[in-house]
């Protein structure tokens, strides 16, 4: 019984990370029809920036705040000076650009920080354990889930209760139409792209103490995040929430129940969803 509780909580923590990474990815795809291959590299950069900031300041909370802000700036620059320039050439060029960018970031990380894994050590109450549902559980994993829940709620409020949110949701459906109603769509693109990068960076920081900070961490989460947005429906935020939860738990219980082919489980899920509902759980039929 306590095993199940522990694996369920593990699954929740990973689901939280997946949601932070995939929410930006799915919104950017919905609006710009660009699958951003560099998105997971932003996540990795977030973790490395946190590692670096922690070395300088020794304060995890500061790293948690500043690293996503650095990604916010990087995201804005990438959109403004790279992606927007190739936009007129079509989606294939945009895709290739993000692909190349992912390689550049991955190699830059190796050049600067080496190929060895680094650890982000947390201290204070985050490093403690608590008793929950009869099991002893690390506070930090609950913290990861709490951060993603809080951000998910915040994003929901922005998207469904503000004018900016209305504009973003409309642009996901039909961005040229939004533009011809007098809204500066390129600016909205830049905003969503950079906020997406910042969220991904935040996921990277929070993942740091949980997993190890190494050059392979981008590739590891990229595939899972793609599966999340395909299963949830490309462009659907609600779909990203549900699919993150399903895939987080599937990963976690897969390791417990079918350790030999736990990695194959999420691909099997994706295959089943694509056969039954090709547009994803919450996706729009084309």
């Amino acid at each position, binding site marked *: 019984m306590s095993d199940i509780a522990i694996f369920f909580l593990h699954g929740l923590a990973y689901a939280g990370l997946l949601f932070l990474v995939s929410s930006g990815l799915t919104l950017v795809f919905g609006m710009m029809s660009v699958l951003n291959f560099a998105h997971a590299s932003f996540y990795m950069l977030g973790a490395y920036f946190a590692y670096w900031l922690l070395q300088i300041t020794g304060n995890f909370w500061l790293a948690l705040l500043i690293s996503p802000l650095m990604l916010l700036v990087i995201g804005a620059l990438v959109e403004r000076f790279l992606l927007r320039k190739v936009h007129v050439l079509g989606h294939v060029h945009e895709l290739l650009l993000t692909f190349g960018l992912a390689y550049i970031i991955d190699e830059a990380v190796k050049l600067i920080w080496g190929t060895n894994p680094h650890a982000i050590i947390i201290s204070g109450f985050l490093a403690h354990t608590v008793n929950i549902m009869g099991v002893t559980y690390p506070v930090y994993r609950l913290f990861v889930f709490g951060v993603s829940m809080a951000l998910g709620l915040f994003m929901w409020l922005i998207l469904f209760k503000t004018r900016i949110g*209305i504009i973003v949701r*409309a642009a996901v459906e*039909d961005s040229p139409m939004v533009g011809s109603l007098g809204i500066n769509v390129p600016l909205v693109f830049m905003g969503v792209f950079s906020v997406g990068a910042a969220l991904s960076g935040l996921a990277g920081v929070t993942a740091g103490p949980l997993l190890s900070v190494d050059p392979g961490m981008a590739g590891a989460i990229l595939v899972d995040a793609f599966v999340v947005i395909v299963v949830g429906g490309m462009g659907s935020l609600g779909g990203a929430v549900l699919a993150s939860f399903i895939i987080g738990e599937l990963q976690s219980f897969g390791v417990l129940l079918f350790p030999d082919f736990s990695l194959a489980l999420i691909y099997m899920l994706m295959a089943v969803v694509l056969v039954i509902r090709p547009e994803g759980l919450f996706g729009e039929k084309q």
Partner: protein
Amino acid sequence: MILEIKDLHTYYGASHILQSVDLVLDQGELVCLLGRNGVGKSTTLKSIIGLVPPRKGSVLFNGIQLAGLDPYRIARLGVGFVPEERRIFKGLTVLENLQIGIKKAHSQTDREPWNAETIFEMFTKLGERSLQKGGHLSGGEQQMLTVARTLMGNPELILVDEPTEGLAPLVADSVLKMLGTISDSGVTILMVEQNYKAALKLARGFYIMSKGQMVFHGTGEELVAAEKIRQKYLEV
């Protein structure tokens, strides 16, 4: 003169769609653009709003050059666009669809500005369904919503592309009647329409297009009298 188009050329890739289009609209007019499928009527509207930027020529709106501007800038100058196929935002509520259309008030007119309340007074059906998703509306209601959404930006000029397409005759009539009411309030309207007979009751000026050029410009009486032109360019 609110709109003056001169020698406008627009391409889709290599195909030369608009081949020197000229068009003039006076303040407060309702003008109808006629012609067979594929002669460039929609492209003319899309060239004005900037969705398909013209390659050559001039589009003057209140003396301001629109050619080369982004659609959002053109819209902010006071041009509204009601597209073909009723591109409402299906996942957004009726009210949210309207809120997208809000622009900073255009101060050059004395008209009472449109807002959600005045819209719901005029379009009572939309008011009743303000919290429903746009995708759940009927075709006629969706058409009303695209027009209302544009009105929320208080435009001086509205470009309307085939507003009655695919609607039942009675619904089509009410859509045209509504456009007449909007025109009476002082808004200039340029409308693309297949059915010139329906438009005769409504529009003052008519243009006919063929192969990317204007081949006729005149009043309703002149259009009725020009039987040869109608046979050649409109009737099947």
